[in-house]
């Protein structure tokens, strides 16, 4: 994809994007609630109880002095029994408060972790169902960050912001009611100050949010630069390019410094602003209330004013706390948006109904069997009359006038016609971008043809269920791609229920047995990071063994081109040849021997098949093939 990854993410977020983020957040809340309704109701109940218990506890100080200490001092009494009684009572409230706090936090842990696990699992399952096109058109780093960064922003928000918001809502409501009861007029004044507070914090939070976005995109750019230069550090050295590299880096580093220090500055000043505005509100109420009480306006007594001031303090506190969470929420909204975008991707469509079944042939008739027979048949249930046909799986492939482009603007293949009889070997040759890989992408329906037909054993592949079609086609890609796990597990990937003997047999066929036995733990050697501890040749041998154990009737091979030394190359070649024996094979060929041994060679040029025939025929033609083969340009 051209251009830096974060291009387009400007400092100003569009209103549209904000709306989408808000919607994603709403959807997340709904998902959480529909999954954990009982948990959340209990959380609310426990929060209410803990708020009440805490209020009762706070009031105790006043009661202690007014109802116990002052009278005792006055009476010169030394009877502490009533006080002890009261302390015991309060202790009971405290214990309830502690238990409730613990309970709601504990419940939230379950809700939080459970929700995150569900999202991760959903994302992964959904991701596996997406078409290849999705992976070809999205940066892999972006997909990965859904699982790490974005989930992480949700974790912080759910565990902290959610209970705090519930808590704050309850506290604010309770306090508001009490304030109105004490003095409607002063309540209005308090609310006016609160509105100012919310306005100011909202402003600061939105500025800070903007710089956070800028910071994220600066980080993205700087990381991109670091990654590129670190990977190419040796090239930098060889070209004495250090100074230029430092200059480029400094420019990006400086810009990250600016956005980072601004974003953090605005986030940091939210707290002080809120606190001090709260104090101003307190003073205003004291002055206004004092004036009212002194003048007797609005039936406000001094005692009521004192209580009101306490409430004023506990009204502003939760608002200030919630506003500190705003950045978390903004970040979580962006994360939720990306997560739901992944979950909303259209999965791979499959309208096929022809399936692949085990079969036995008796007296020229195919019957379906449960057990593995080594013979396979296509089970074709006709949609018109529901009659069932069986057709033997042989590996006969026909392409009829296939036209294709990855995007509507750019056609890649033009009028491709070809047929391969069972067991035949078809080689594709041609320059980069000629469309070789595209043809193989179409045969196993990684991409679907728009114009033309592809038939497998006479059946239009669009009618075959994708999993069944792919099971019948083995594939060995240029990039091998192994999985974390043992060598045996990697081979068994082709047939999950394969016995150890089958694994070894496949390895022997692929010529891989020799090197595997030399590994420290043989077949139980654990491979990490795409088989990083193996050489390129060894990885290819494992990929061949993996295809061999699946024993498919047809094969797609993309010959690897990485520089491996001649001896290893010969071993790989032998393995490939044994794998191809007796199977219909489509091979994107690079090696002379592979090409020469093919039954048909298709020469592709810019999406057209320009020549076809076997080696001898094509050499005699002295066309493009001859030119490629001899390295000589024919003056026609």
């Amino acid at each position, binding site marked *: 994809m051209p251009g830096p990854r974060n291009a387009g993410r400007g400092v100003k977020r569009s209103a549209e994007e904000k709306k989408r983020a808000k919607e994603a957040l709403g959807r997340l809340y709904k998902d959480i609630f529909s999954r954990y309704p009982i948990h959340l109701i209990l959380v609310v109940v426990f929060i209410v109880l803990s708020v009440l218990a805490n209020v009762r506890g706070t009031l105790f100080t006043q009661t202690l002095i007014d109802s116990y200490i002052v009278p005792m001092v006055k009476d010169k009494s030394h009877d502490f029994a009533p006080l002890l009684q009261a302390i015991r009572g309060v202790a009971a409230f405290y214990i309830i408060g502690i238990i409730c706090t613990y309970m709601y936090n504990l419940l939230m842990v379950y809700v939080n972790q459970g929700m995150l696990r569900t999202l991760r699992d959903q994302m992964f399952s959904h991701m596996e169902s997406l078409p290849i096109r999705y992976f070809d058109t999205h940066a892999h780093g972006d997909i990965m960050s859904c699982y790490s960064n974005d989930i992480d922003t949700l974790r912080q928000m759910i565990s902290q912001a959610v209970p705090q918001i519930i808590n704050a809502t309850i506290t604010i409501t309770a306090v508001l009611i009490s304030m109105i009861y004490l003095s409607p007029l002063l309540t209005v004044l308090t609310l006016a100050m609160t509105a100012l507070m919310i306005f100011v914090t909202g402003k600061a939070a939105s500025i800070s949010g903007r710089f956070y976005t800028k910071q994220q995109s600066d980080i993205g750019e700087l990381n991109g630069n670091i990654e590129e230069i670190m990977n190419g550090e*040796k090239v930098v050295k060889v070209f004495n390019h250090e100074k230029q590299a430092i200059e480029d880096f400094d420019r990006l580093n400086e810009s990250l410094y600016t956005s980072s220090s601004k974003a953090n500055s605005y986030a940091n000043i939210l707290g002080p602003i809120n606190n001090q505005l709260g104090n101003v509100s307190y003073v205003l109420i004291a002055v206004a209330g004092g004036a009212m009480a002194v003048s007797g306006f609005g039936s406000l007594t001094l005692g009521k004013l004192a209580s009101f001031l306490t409430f004023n303090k506990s009204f502003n506190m939760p608002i200030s706390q919630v506003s500190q969470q705003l950045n978390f929420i903004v970040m979580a909204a962006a994360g939720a948006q990306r997560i739901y975008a992944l979950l909303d991707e259209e999965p791979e469509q499959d309208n096929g109904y022809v399936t692949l079944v085990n079969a036995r042939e008796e007296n020229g008739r195919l019957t379906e069997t449960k057990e593995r027979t080594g013979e396979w048949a296509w089970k074709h249930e006709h949609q018109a009359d529901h009659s069932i046909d069986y057709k033997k799986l042989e590996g006969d492939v026909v392409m009829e006038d296939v036209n294709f482009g990855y995007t509507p603007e750019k056609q890649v293949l033009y009028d491709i016609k070809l047929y391969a009889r069972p067991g035949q070997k078809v080689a594709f040759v041609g320059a980069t971008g000629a469309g070789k890989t595209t043809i193989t992408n179409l045969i196993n329906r990684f991409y679907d043809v728009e114009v033309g037909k592809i038939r497998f054993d006479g059946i239009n592949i669009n009618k075959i269920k994708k999993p069944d079609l792919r099971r019948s086609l083995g594939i060995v890609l240029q990039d091998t791609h192994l999985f974390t796990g043992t060598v045996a597990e990697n081979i068994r990937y082709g047939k999950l229920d394969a016995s150890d003997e089958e694994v070894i047999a496949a390895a022997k066929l692929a010529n891989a047995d020799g090197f595997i036995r030399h590994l420290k733990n043989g077949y139980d050697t654990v491979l990490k990071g795409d088989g990083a501890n193996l050489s390129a040749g060894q990885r290819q041998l494992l990929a061949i063994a993996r295809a061999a154990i699946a024993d498919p009737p047809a094969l797609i091979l993309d010959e690897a081109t990485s520089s491996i030394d001649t001896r290893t190359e010969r071993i790989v070649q032998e393995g490939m040849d044994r794998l191809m024996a007796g199977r219909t094979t489509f091979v994107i060929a690079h090696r002379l021997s592979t090409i020469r041994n093919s039954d048909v060679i298709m020469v592709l040029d810019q999406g057209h098949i320009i020549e076809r025939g076997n080696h001898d025929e094509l050499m005699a033609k002295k066309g493009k093939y001859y030119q490629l083969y001899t390295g000589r340009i024919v003056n026609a």
Partner: protein
Amino acid sequence: MRNIVKNIKGFWAVSIATPIAMLAEVAMEMILPSLMAGIIDDGVNKGNMHVILVFGGYMLLVALIGLVAGIAGGVFGAKASAGLAKNLRGSMFRRIQEYSFENIDRFETSSLITRLTTDVTNVQNSYMMLLRMGMRAPASLVVALVMSFAVSPKMAMIYVYALIFLTIVLIIMLPVVSRMFSRVFKKYDAMNESVQENVNAIRVVKAYVREDHEIKKFRGKSQDIYKNFLKVEKLMTLIMPVMMATVYFSILMLSWRGAKLIVGGSLQTGQLVQLLTYCMSILMSLMMFAMVAVMILMSMASVQRISEVLDEKPAVSNPEDPVMEIKDGSIDFDHVNFSYLKNDNYVLSDIDLHIKSGETIGVIGGTGSSKSTLVSLISRLYDVSGGDVKVGGVDVRRYDLKKLRDEVSVVLQQNLLFTGTIYENLRWGDPDASDEEVKRAAKLACADEFIEKFPDGYDTRITQGGTNVSGGQRQRLCIARALLKKPKILILDDSTSAVDTATDSRIRRAFREEIPGTTKIIIAQRISSVSDADRIVVMNEGRIDGVGTHQELLEGNAIYRDVYESQSAGSGDFDEKEED
């Protein structure tokens, strides 16, 4: 630590101002309660409007100072920590530019990237926390404690006990929690690995219809994270109730003992109220302090990893009084031994090879025969372990490094291009090259033919790693880039492996005809790439197995003959290779 302190450079003022501003904010916070009490006790309760106004005025003043201090602390803290991060990144990046290949090999690329990004961010966050809370929390703790002792030492002791209790709880819990967290992070790594594997290998997964199998594997990993995270979070939720219990217990103890003291006449009611307000602030400060401690503890690992990068000594450095002039392109290996690690087995043993200026040398040999190592000694990408390498008759260790590398141009096996246009990429070889010079180099490398077919020609943008051009095109661009240096020695390390045979031979012909004076060393797997060289060196297991012309080697060298026969027997390459 020393490295961190050094990198505060330029941000000392804000670094010092931050805690001071935070202390001012704390001071204002400490004054406020007594002003509020004043408003209530002397103003509201007595109905004294004058007192309300006076105290209200004081409060506004205090609030204003607090606001200014708070904002200053926030802004300075953000600046100081972002500045430290900037400096750390800059210092590391500069240091890495001084590294030799040996240093780069020691750190893996991915680990260098993490150190420059994640680790620096960790340090930035803890530094901000340290500046803003590191002073503030202990200060308010100390102030509140001192004030409590001033009011009543007997009562203040209750806080001391509570503090001791909480400290013990934290000391026991923190290591457990941090151990559990590191286990969670390991599980995270395992999950990320699984996702990455699936994203990269999605074609394999789909081709083998293994979606359900992969989902099952992933569920296991996801469940692992769930279980471990649940465990640590459950433990963390215990901290809050424990703290609340301590606070409440302290309040009750204060009330009980306070009542007794008041009745006994040795304590005032107001003093009890004052003591109770300190309660929260003492315990909150302790929690805050614990949080800072945890963050710093966790970032220590990052500090360590950053320091490793900064403390690494470049293995190859410029000599004193360097030779600035390179006479010609002759190369002499005099009994050279080399090993990558000290005291390890030699990967090159007793190499004695003399190359005349302007000669074309082919190098051939199997994987692990140390062909690349051999040529990397010429431009001092590594230094020899024994013997010496001379260019133009002078030991390479005596040349100015930049001069040497300008005259010895290497096309590495790793054929990397960088984000930017083709012009920009090729000008790595010579920043001042004119458009015509760039085009001439491209023509020499047979790259002009495909560049001119691009809609944007030489202004075509190359994406990161050069993935939007084919392997063969990338190699030709890399050769053009190296040619632009107009070097005395040109080294191609397996640089035409993805170029078709015909183009490969045209490139070599161009070298012969256009730059006859340049010494050329060509490493290759294909015999055809070296067969027309003046001399061919056959390498085997770190030793020279034979030197001679194509014909001489065919007759006299078993390894060479074997490679030749295997390639002409039909397992050679056919067309232009692609690597994407």
